[in-house]
């Protein structure tokens, strides 16, 4: 039987044409562009709630709003409002504007403001600082000052099980942890209670999640709302050194990142891809119990983006910026030395030439004097 290949859909994202499969979202199309050409990484819409490995996630934070200037080739009218790119599927001939449209950037600025309304300014204390998606989002798209003067909502800290701590104050209600819990258990153990301003992540009256994979809610959380209690206040992420490592685990893939302070393992997390997403969850025993180097087989230092603060004070070759500009300039100005003179061995000729050269030099210096 002949294999039926789905016809690819061509869309234009910020002036760049890309072909994707039907059913792909605008976000995925943008990521495809960036994966093909990493200089275009800046045009991918930011995502605070969307998490590809978690089905049904997305559409909540509005960080990824884009403008669709042309709905499709058949219906070229623009979409009336900005649409969330993480849940909007592409159509043939769609034209999307993200960084090229000032309205989108302006809206994004407002979205940062909305997300930060109830988010406390406790980054100096928060363990997530340095790898926080909200920090990145606010830094890249927000304004430097807050206009909010009212009281922020506050909650008491809650311990979810022995190893996870919930700071509801910091939560931005992205629902990622809820979808993670839905994925790893059959029962509903973890959800959001209350509505609007009063909504709150809860585990049905603080019922501890005793699932083996519950620790992954820490990695999935874009902010510091769910944090590792074994790592609490141990160190700032940029002082620790991440190393890729694996171990033989019968529950999970065993692929993890081990964070060192000196020779001491202070934290174990799952591996994240370019988009900050964990594709392979790790189990709780790997995360919370294997805190010795002997538990792990090290693979080498984790690749950290140079823009990340985690790369600070680390002098690995791939983290040090090469002087691109100077090298390019040198390449344009490079000239081969003219060395076409005959090679003279005869002593009489050498003597004659050196006298001539000497005269030339004297002549030149006398000329330059005048």
């Amino acid at each position: 039987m002949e294999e039926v290949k789905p016809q690819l859909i061509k869309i234009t994202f910020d002036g760049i044409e890309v072909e994707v499969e039907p059913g792909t979202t605008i976000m995925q199309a943008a990521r495809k562009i960036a994966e093909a050409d990493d200089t275009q990484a800046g045009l991918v819409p930011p995502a605070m709630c969307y998490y590809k490995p978690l089905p049904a996630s997305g559409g909540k934070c509005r960080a990824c709003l884009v403008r669709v200037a042309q709905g499709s080739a058949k219906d070229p009218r623009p979409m009336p409002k900005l649409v969330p790119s993480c849940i909007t599927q592409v159509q043939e001939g769609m034209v999307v504007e993200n960084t090229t449209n000032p309205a989108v950037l302006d809206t994004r600025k407002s979205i940062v403001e909305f997300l930060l309304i109830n988010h406390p300014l406790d980054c100096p204390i928060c363990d997530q600082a340095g790898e926080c998606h909200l920090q990145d989002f606010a830094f890249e798209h927000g304004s430097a000052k807050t206009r909010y003067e009212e009281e922020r909502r506050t909650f008491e800290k809650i311990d979810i099980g022995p190893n996870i701590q919930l700071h509801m104050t910091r939560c931005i209600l992205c629902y990622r942890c809820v979808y993670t819990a839905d994925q790893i258990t059959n029962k509903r153990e973890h959800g959001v209670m209350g509505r609007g301003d009063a909504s709150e992540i809860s585990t049905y009256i603080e019922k501890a999640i005793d699932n083996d994979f519950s620790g992954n809610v820490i990695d999935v959380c874009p902010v510091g709302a769910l944090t590792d209690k074994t790592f609490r206040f141990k160190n700032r992420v940029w002082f620790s050194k991440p190393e890729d490592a694996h171990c033989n685990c019968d529950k999970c893939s065993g692929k993890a990142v081990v964070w060192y302070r000196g020779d001491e393992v202070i934290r174990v997390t799952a591996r994240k891809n370019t988009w900050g997403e964990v594709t392979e969850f790790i189990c709780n025993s790997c995360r919370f119990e294997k805190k010795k180097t002997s538990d792990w087989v090290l693979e080498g230092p984790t690749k950290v983006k140079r823009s990340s603060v985690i790369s600070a004070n680390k002098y690995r070759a791939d983290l040090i910026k090469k002087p691109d500009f100077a090298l390019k300039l040198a390449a344009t100005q490079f000239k081969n030395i003219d060395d076409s003179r005959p090679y003279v061995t005869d002593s009489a000729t050498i003597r004659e030439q050196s006298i001539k050269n000497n005269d030339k030099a004297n002549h030149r210096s006398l000329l330059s004097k005048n």
Partner: protein
Amino acid sequence: MTLMERAYLPAIATGLAITIKHFFAKKVTIEYPEVKRYLGPVFRGRHILKRDEEGRERCTACGLCAVACPAEAISMVAEERVKGEESLYREEKYAAVYEVNMLRCIFCGLCEEACPKQAVYLRHDEFVPVFADRDQVIWGKDRLVEDMNNRYTRESWTKEEARMLDAKRANGEATNVVPRAIP
């Protein structure tokens, strides 16, 4: 030459007069270790870890000073505040160890600029004293944290403030500014 010029005596007298005038003139030099010059409001001397008005330590060991430090002179260990220590530390996390390596420090003041809690400052009135021993090079919290009985006061706590004060002084305004202990 005229007779007056040939006599030389008047010239010697004028010369001596200049010399004698300098005996009574105000001296431009000072006797350094006994007398110290005012170094300016934004001089960057030794570090201090500030306390707030209630005497609680402001530092939360966020590590921004250490990551901003180009000489990697600062290191710290954070600790969680326990119940009963609310009068000692301002936030739920504090620096149990805070060390500045004064040999490494280049007194650039980036730590001061990076500090989100206005905890670390470079004093405008004190230098790091000369080391006599290697043990004295690394300053711990015992030497860095502010003494509440002898607080560090300053006329202006930011560069902007200092600049404004300078402008006011140049115009003859703001003659009596009282240095204050709290940024």
